[in-house]
């Protein structure tokens, strides 16, 4: 297998061109690829079409930094705190510029990516009938089902140009183990033209091959893999570190106004070179305090014969 290991900077530079559709934050509130998002901001990517069910505050940061032309999502905010101010400013007042919002429900977004993964132009569902969501989203339409003739909703496929996933561990070819809640990760990986894996650690191919059922991301679908410890902070990575709840609270308070956000962005993103400087800024005590201490190991499975 080809070696795809590279620096996160290079992965973003090569596989996230201006104008690309980018799926990220696939596991909802956990394993959000903040390091990759910050790199996108630092490289000044523009006109991105962001896709994600939720992505907690990462979507808000990308919108505030002016990277997004369109957001296709089911929920944009700060899960613990409520509203996300940059998102509100962009939609309500066009600050820093207007952003097109394509509203989905969690299920219709999951189905859109599933359609992309299955290679079909649409999938049928009973959800969203009678809602304004279907009335306003051109990717949702009523149709008559074959066989039964009943009215159902069709969800148009989404195939992102690039899907960015956070994984616990990967080998150098991008074969990656992921555990915990999977959200829309499997479909977003399969639907995408390119996949960037951001792994907490790069391990030997032997470790990955020891448990093929854990290999949610097959390397031959992956374009680049980068090793970025703590790459999902402040969101949690099961088995590695916990959620930094305070950080989400602080972000909420520190981004109420545009001027506040600009300061926040400089301090936490644009003035830093990468994840190592970010962690220094966070401070060793805080980093250590978030690390998993109560280990809970999986029972082993025998793949022998």
């Amino acid at each position, binding site marked *: 297998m080809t070696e795809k290991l590279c620096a996160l900077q290079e992965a973003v530079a090569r596989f996230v061109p201006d104008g690309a559709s980018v799926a990220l934050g696939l*596991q*909802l*509130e*956990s*394993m959000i690829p903040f390091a990759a998002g910050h790199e996108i901001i630092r490289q000044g990517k523009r006109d991105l079409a962001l896709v994600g*069910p*939720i992505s*907690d505050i990462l979507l808000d940061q990308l919108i505030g930094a002016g990277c997004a032309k369109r957001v296709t*999502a*089911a*929920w*944009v*905010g700060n*899960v*613990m705190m409520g*509203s*996300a101010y940059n*998102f*509100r400013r962009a*939609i*309500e007042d066009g600050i820093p510029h207007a952003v097109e*919002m394509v*509203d989905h*429900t*969690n*299920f*219709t977004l*999951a*189905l859109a990516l*599933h359609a992309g993964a299955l290679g079909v132009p649409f999938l049928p*569902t*009973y*959800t*969203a*009938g*009678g*809602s*304004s*969501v279907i009335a306003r989203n051109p990717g949702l339409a009523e149709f008559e089902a074959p066989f039964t003739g*009943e*009215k*159902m909703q069709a969800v148009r496929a989404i195939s992102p140009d690039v899907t960015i996933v956070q994984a616990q561990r990967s080998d150098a070819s991008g074969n990656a183990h992921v*555990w*915990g*809640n*999977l*959200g*829309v*990760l*499997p*479909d977003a990986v399969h639907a995408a033209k390119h996949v960037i894996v951001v792994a907490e650690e790069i391990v030997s191919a032997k470790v990955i091959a020891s448990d093929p059922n854990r290999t949610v991301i097959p390397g031959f679908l992956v374009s680049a893999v980068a090793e970025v410890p703590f790459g999902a902070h402040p*969101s*949690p990575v*099961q088995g590695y570190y*916990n*959620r930094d*709840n305070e950080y*989400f609270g602080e972000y909420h308070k520190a981004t109420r106004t545009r001027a506040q956000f600009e300061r926040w962005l400089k301090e936490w993103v644009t003035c830093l070179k990468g994840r190592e400087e970010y962690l220094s800024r966070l401070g060793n005590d805080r980093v250590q305090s978030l690390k*998993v201490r109560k280990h*809970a190991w999986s029972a082993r499975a025998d793949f022998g014969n």
Partner: protein
Amino acid sequence: MVATAAREIRDGDVVFVGMRLPLIAFVVAKHTHAPDAVGVFENGILRSTPARELLFTMSDGPNITGALSCLSMLECMALLQRGRVSLGFLGAAEVDRRGNLNSTEVRDASGKAIRLPGSGGACDIAALAKRFVALLDHQRFRLPEKVHYVTSPGFGPWRAGRLAQGGPAAVITTKAVLRFSAGGEAYLHSYHPGTTVQDVLANTGWDLQVSPEVRETKPPTRQELRAIRAYDRDGFWTR
């Protein structure tokens, strides 16, 4: 409000647990009257035991440790669409007379659009759970006669062909419990201790019907309060 929500969970229910307050209601029910309830979380988690530590989001570590299963969002939503979910919980910013919920876009006093986070799984729960319960901060502007954006559909013609019965089984607010008539019109079922029927009516944006059997909401039992306090020690969710 959390205790009242928890009581909507019957033992053995498969409960679709939405973000934020429902996370606590599920834990309280598991610790009190519904030990055999199963929780379905849209991020892909199924749980038959309550998480041991306070959750700020459903994807927090303690909700994964010891979970019954970790699936994908699609598989959890499929449980809903197959009619395997007996009860769903969701929050809303506005609820109207016909049980339509809005959590996407409201207007301020000047008529300007205010953007809220959006549906998440709320529309799906309303469309597909066998029963669903909405949670609401009771303020007059949050209870308009008609929401202008329907995030989660209530009672209406689109019910035909859907699996769900349509419309909320209850709207639990910070002041009261609303339920719905067979015709799909909201009525006041009970008012919480510390408030009155008049107070509820004054803070509702239409001429809310009152049940002839209206009563005070049963206050939280000691056991329920203990479960809430033990779980949300610092009162982040339940002050």
